[in-house]
């Protein structure tokens, strides 16, 4: 399964036509202790780089942008009661939503792991 990143620090892991979305360890660290994750509704149609949800820490609130266009098919309800998982396991347990991808070509607009690592060095 390959992983791609946005410039806004979301990741998407793609398996077939399903993308699993979360935020990067860098983003989780920058936000600090996460206190709330607002998840999208199942069935919501999202555009690439459009708002998928939001995430809050004590001192900040950020939007989560969708790395790809598609339809939300599953959300990780567990984050609503245990937002701290985003800090503990951002790239794994703290996945936020799965979307059915409508246009795989949009992957070309995302960064690979190596590209993202280089991007982080520029910040």
């Amino acid at each position, binding site marked *: 399964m390959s992983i791609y990143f946005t410039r806004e620090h979301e990741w998407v892991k793609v398996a077939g036509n399903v993308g699993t979305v979360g935020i990067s360890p860098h983003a989780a660290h920058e936000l600090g202790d996460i*206190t709330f994750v607002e998840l999208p509704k199942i069935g919501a149609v999202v555009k690439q780089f459009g708002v998928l949800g939001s995430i809050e*820490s004590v001192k900040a609130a950020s939007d989560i942008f969708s790395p790809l266009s598609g339809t939300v098919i599953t959300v990780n309800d567990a984050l609503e009661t245990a937002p701290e998982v985003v800090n503990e396991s951002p790239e794994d347990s703290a996945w936020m939503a799965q979307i059915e991808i409508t246009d795989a070509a949009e992957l070309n607009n995302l960064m690979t792991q190596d590209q993202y690592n280089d991007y982080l060095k520029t910040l």
Partner: protein
Amino acid sequence: MHLIYEQSTPGRRGVRLPASDVPAASALPDTLLRAEKAGLAEVSELDLVRHFTNLSRRNFSVDTNFYPLGSCTMKYNAKVLENSAALFTPFHPMTALLPGGVDFCQGTLGMLYDLGQLLADITGMDEVTTQPLAGAHGEMTGIMLIAAYHAAKGNRAKKKYVVVPDSSHGTNPASAAIAGYEIITVPTAPYGDMDLELFKAAMSDEVAAVMMTCPNTLGLFNPHIKEISDIAHSFDALMYYDGANLNAIMGKVKPGDVGFDVMHVNLHKTFGTPHGGGGPGSGPVGVKRALIPFLPQPRIVMDGDGKLQLETANPGTIGRTANFFGNFGVMVRAYAYIIMLGREGLIQVSEQAVLNANYIKEKLKGHYDLPYDMTCMHEVVFSASRQLEHGVHAIDIAKFLIDKGYHPPTVYFPMIVKEAIMIEPTETESKATMDAFIEAMIEAARTAESSPQALHDAPLTMPISRLDETKAAREQNVCHIG
């Protein structure tokens, strides 16, 4: 400290009520009655007095500590203002709205009218409404007046955006959003003001208003302000002035003279009324002539005989932003402040506020990074980026200052400055107080290098140490259970 509810004893009372001199009414039907009495405190008068007196002692305040909280203008609140406000407590606002009622309220209506006149002179505006209840409420009122202005010209659908600089107070975009607008944010240029070229690029016929603070939240006066307002006006966008920083410029420059069409004044900042632990404030809004038809009602006007009347039949009005005439008690204090200080006094206020901020800037700029190193107005913004190299954040410096007996400056605002420390000394502080504060700031900088842990541990002298804000946000215990 125990909560007042933890000191309750069933049946105990803090005050004896008057006895009834009329027969008891027949009971209300059970279907309308509450099942249980509200669980309020049950304490004696002395218990109550000790509780709140002891609580008050767990606060820093202007009367007890230097409070250089940037953007908030925490000046000393003269005591005669409190005595003055007490003179007006018995007057019922409804009296003025009764048929013939204005005859009985000429004092209070006249005070509001005069305050409007004084504020109009200070700001260069043509008329002032005293209804808005705080600064943000004034912003919202002002943007609604602008919306009504565009709607009256048939441009409601066309005008979609409000432009704000990225250094603006958060209330600016929030107020514009409530008034129905989308926000365009313009970045700050390296010279500390809104980037003029990017501003020009952001402007179009679809912009309803441009909201500015001048001096801005970096404490810098924008020399291009007239050019900016000319550009805005060329697109029929109106200029909104956030009056939060008016303390810097009284008698020196009037927003109305440099192209602003609407503005609010924070009476609790510039005009010396107490901040009350978060409020009440008061945010009168001044407008240029073109916006007078849209002002909230009732509007206080003077008739040909010099008598105050209430105008209530204006078809263009946006309506009402408060139930009555605004935070009257706050306005009494501000009015007393203005007439007490007078013309030369207010000029002196601005001059010394600016002098004090520049003095602190010069004294501290060798110890803290100063991202915008130029003459400031009433406040100065440093960055703790140098201290961050030792792992010390602005918040650590803030907590260290608490142990030294100072309320910390504003930290992490404006957001465009990393690790911002925003200091506004105000005019009422003596040189000796500022010198001692400067020493404490220098000590904090030194300690950041020598023993950063000491800063991380601060404060140590308060009733509590640093609090777990994450726990508070996750658990949301906002009401005492038990």
